[in-house]
């Protein structure tokens, strides 16, 4: 009998190898149809009308002029909002559907609304704007920690609000036909995108068909149907036509989610030898109009006496959403800035300082191993210098280190695997591929389990008609979909082995599927081809559904949670211009058992690059006077281009010690540490801390002034 346990390394034909993603060719040739690309017959375009005020009472909405425009076919008004407050610029108050995108845009612009303008507040970095009570979290007694210390070091640091800036904007194409909803949303949550949409649009959940084969980035911001999902569906219902509603770039950047800011004052107690004895952090920031919360301080290194005080600032900005590794990148930057500043003040080498305190981390052995590898990769011994020993001349080099952690336990998931009499195999699962390679992962697991080549599996994802699988967030997808696929494929295979057993005259529990054959374990002479075995399925196909029961799967070693990760940056800074250049960066990452080395490494490179971008360029800039986001576009909301990222090298931890843990997701971890590592490298290069991200020339020159 086949069992669900992952095969030993010697028995793996696909798992852990470097496998090319299966949907590569359709993407590279422009044939992949994303939600934005759906053009069903009779399509109407919808464009929202939005509030021009950051804070106002909405008095009335008048769509008469818009409706009179030739080509306008439908109008939706947020009547519930009349008499209520709009809370940020770009908040949707109405929407028009028209025969063309141009007409819809024109019509949305002539929707007339009356407002009573109220005072707004968009400043997020000044604690005097904090609202509500501070939340406090103390472990041990931080006062004791400071009493134990030889020195107390204090510092101020900050991370601004940044946005997801998905290449494909939020939105969907919706078609209500025969009382049923056919929807093509850009989502990271195919199976549950439509949950709770039913009440809002008056269509039963069972009559909602969701299809998302390709989506252009989510990063945590695309779980829900959102207001535009409701509007698009209602407009389709109203007009009897399919409706395309995807946000324009300015709305995508200003209202479709962002990562909350974090500003802090940190107090750190240390022994003269570098031992951390106490850590106190006061943090504030904004998540828009709602609540505010970052994870508690400090990050990775947790002395027994520590305290976090947190206060939120409500602002008239678009609301926060989960952003890849929620709250970790901010807390990492704030903590590791303080840690390396402390090491520098004590005159201790940063790597030595971290090594001295590794007992304060959850995984000292993992971090130690990873730190050594990272140091070797970047040539630390040769390049490292103390902050007091700066390069001569205007261009100065420096190294910086940061570490991170993440959970990543596979989410709940179901998968159906069907073996047909003609030998074909289908794997159906309601997951989605955000570019992580999820589609390929399902194929790899099914093929490995059934002893077949990758191409033998017809993998179907991206529809809520398939067995439900969790949303892709928190690095939970690879673990979840791998286990459910493995369970289903193993069950299906065992039934086939039972049938083959009679024919081969070998007990089923002595059979295995390998290299396209069903054979006796250890005796290739007793075997039959996969196709011949499947031909015996006279009664029809074998179809089995498998599930990831997280607790059991973790106990069985199929999945696990908790990774480390170390990154080191090598930068040069021109102190005359303030320009920071990332020369090189190394990332060492563990994530348990790796399924596809190629897409796994891509994820890590991608995370590192996204982190580099946040370090060097990103900030949602708001104008205090008007409450408007000033850079809701891609010229001034910069993301890194191909020449901005320097030389990057990723090292994945492999071997029995890591692989026996089972699968752990890797989407979040690599994006956490880059900003902290780069900020530390800049401080190491120029001798002073640039306290606030991004590390733009103005911030660098301010720090040097």
């Amino acid at each position, binding site marked *: 009998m086949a069992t669900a346990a992952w095969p030993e390394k010697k028995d793996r034909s696909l798992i852990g190898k470097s496998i090319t993603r299966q949907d590569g060719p359709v993407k590279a040739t422009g044939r992949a149809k994303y939600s934005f690309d759906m053009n069903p017959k009779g399509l109407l375009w919808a464009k929202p009308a939005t509030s021009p005020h950051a804070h106002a009472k909405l008095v009335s909405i008048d769509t008469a002029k818009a409706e009179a425009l030739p080509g306008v076919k439908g109008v939706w008004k947020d009547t519930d909002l009349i008499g209520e407050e709009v809370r940020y610029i770009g908040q949707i108050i109405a929407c028009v559907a028209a025969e063309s995108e141009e007409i819809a845009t024109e019509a949305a612009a002539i929707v007339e609304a009356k407002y009573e303008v109220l005072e707004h507040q968009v400043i997020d970095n000044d604690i005097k704007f904090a609202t509500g009570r501070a939340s406090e979290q103390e472990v041990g007694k931080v006062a004791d920690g400071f009493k134990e210390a030889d020195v107390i070091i204090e510092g101020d640091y900050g991370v601004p609000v940044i946005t997801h800036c998905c290449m494909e904007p939020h939105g969907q194409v919706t078609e209500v036909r025969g009382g049923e909803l056919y929807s093509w949303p850009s989502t990271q949550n195919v199976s549950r995108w439509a949950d709770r949409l039913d009440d809002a649009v008056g269509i039963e959940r069972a009559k909602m068909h969701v299809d998302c084969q390709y989506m252009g980035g989510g990063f945590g911001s695309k779980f829900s149907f959102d207001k535009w999902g409701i509007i698009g569906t209602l407009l389709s219902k109203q007009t009897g036509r399919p409706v395309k509603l995807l946000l324009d770039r300015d709305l995508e950047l200003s209202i479709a989610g962002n990562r909350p800011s974090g500003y802090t004052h940190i107090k750190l107690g240390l022994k003269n030898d570098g031992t951390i004895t106490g850590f106190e952090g006061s943090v504030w920031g904004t998540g828009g109009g709602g609540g505010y919360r970052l994870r508690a301080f400090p990050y990775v290194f947790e002395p027994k006496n520590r305290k976090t005080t947190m206060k939120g600032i409500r602002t008239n900005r678009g609301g926060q959403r989960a952003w890849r590794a929620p709250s970790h990148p901010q807390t990492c930057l704030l903590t590791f800035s303080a840690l390396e500043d402390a090491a520098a003040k004590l005159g201790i080498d940063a790597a030595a300082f971290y090594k001295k305190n590794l007992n304060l981390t959850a995984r000292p052995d993992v971090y130690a191993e990873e730190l050594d590898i990272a140091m070797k990769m970047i040539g630390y011994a040769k390049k490292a210098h103390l902050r007091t020993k700066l390069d001569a001349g205007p261009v100065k080099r420096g190294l910086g280190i940061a570490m991170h952690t993440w959970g990543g336990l596979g989410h709940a998931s179901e998968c159906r695997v069907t073996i047909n009499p003609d030998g074909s195999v289908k794997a159906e699962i309601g997951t989605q591929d955000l570019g992580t390679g999820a589609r390929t992962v399902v194929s790899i697991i099914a093929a490995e389990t059934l002893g077949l080549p990758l191409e033998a599996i017809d993998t179907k994802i991206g529809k809520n008609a398939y067995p439900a699988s969790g949303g892709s967030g928190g690095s939970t997808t690879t673990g979840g979909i791998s286990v459910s696929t493995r369970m289903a494929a193993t069950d299906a295979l065992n039934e086939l082995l039972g049938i083959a057993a009679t024919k081969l005259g070998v007990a089923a529990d002595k059979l295995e599927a390998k290299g396209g054959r069903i054979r006796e374990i250890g005796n290739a002479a007793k075997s039959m081809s996969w196709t011949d075995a499947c031909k015996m399925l006279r009664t029809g196909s074998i179809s089995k559904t498998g599930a990831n029961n997280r607790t059991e799967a973790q106990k069985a070693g199929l999945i696990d949670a908790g990774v480390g990760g170390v990154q080191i940056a090598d930068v040069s800074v021109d102190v005359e211009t303030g320009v920071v250049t990332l020369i090189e960066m190394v990332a060492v990452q563990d994530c348990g058992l790796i399924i596809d080395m190629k897409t796994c490494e891509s994820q890590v490179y991608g995370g590192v690059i996204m982190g580099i971008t946040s370090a060097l360029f990103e900030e949602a800039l708001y104008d205090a006077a008007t409450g408007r986001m000033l850079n809701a576009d*891609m010229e001034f909301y910069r993301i890194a281009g191909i020449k901005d990222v320097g030389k990057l090298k990723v090292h994945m931890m492999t071997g029995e010690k890591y692989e026996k843990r089972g699968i752990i997701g890797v989407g979040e971890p690599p994006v956490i540490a880059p900003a902290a590592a780069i900020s530390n490298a800049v401080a190491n290069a120029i001798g002073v801390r640039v306290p606030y991200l991004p590390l733009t020339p103005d911030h660098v020159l301010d720090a040097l002034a």
Partner: protein
Amino acid sequence: MTADENTNMQGKGLSRRGFLKGVGAGGAVATIATGCSTIDRDGAVSLTPRGPEETSITLNLNGRRRKLKVEPRVTLLDALRNRLDLTGAKKVCDRGTCGACTVLVDGEPAYSCSMLAVEAVGRKITTIEGLGTPEKMNAVQKAFVENDAQQCGFCTPGFVVACTAVLTKNPDATLEEAQAGCGGNLCRCGTYVGMNQALMDAAKELKGGA
């Protein structure tokens, strides 16, 4: 309209779509963009207004003549995506920054969001769909797939077109030169490491060294 006239029109810096939108469909700029203009020896321009209603045009698209009706205000990108269902070129920034809409115009990479469809008349337009198919990819596409130079894939067609343009013109390009060729494109997933390798591999294949 002749290509020369087109060049003259572009030389006046009137290709920015935001400006056209600002002036309005019936304005003088949109009229110029319809191409019904002549320039005499003294440089005086005489104009024949067209639009704002739809006008019939024929585009030379991926080696085929495609007839369509567009209002003069419609960008080449929107004409491709919304009128011809050629959705490989993507709409991301819609203002000439990110390169996701890149197509070839007479062999040169161009942001199709920043060009009107009527401006494209008489030019040879190649979109991502004209460069290869999943079964028969060009050298750049193959190298992108092999080196995993794509994740979500939304920016990929624009990068592939830009990279194809730079490497076709100069297969001897250094990595730096090749990078400069796609310096007008942006990726959010962070696929540049695979892309660097893809650029080098594709250049090698185009030189016949693969």
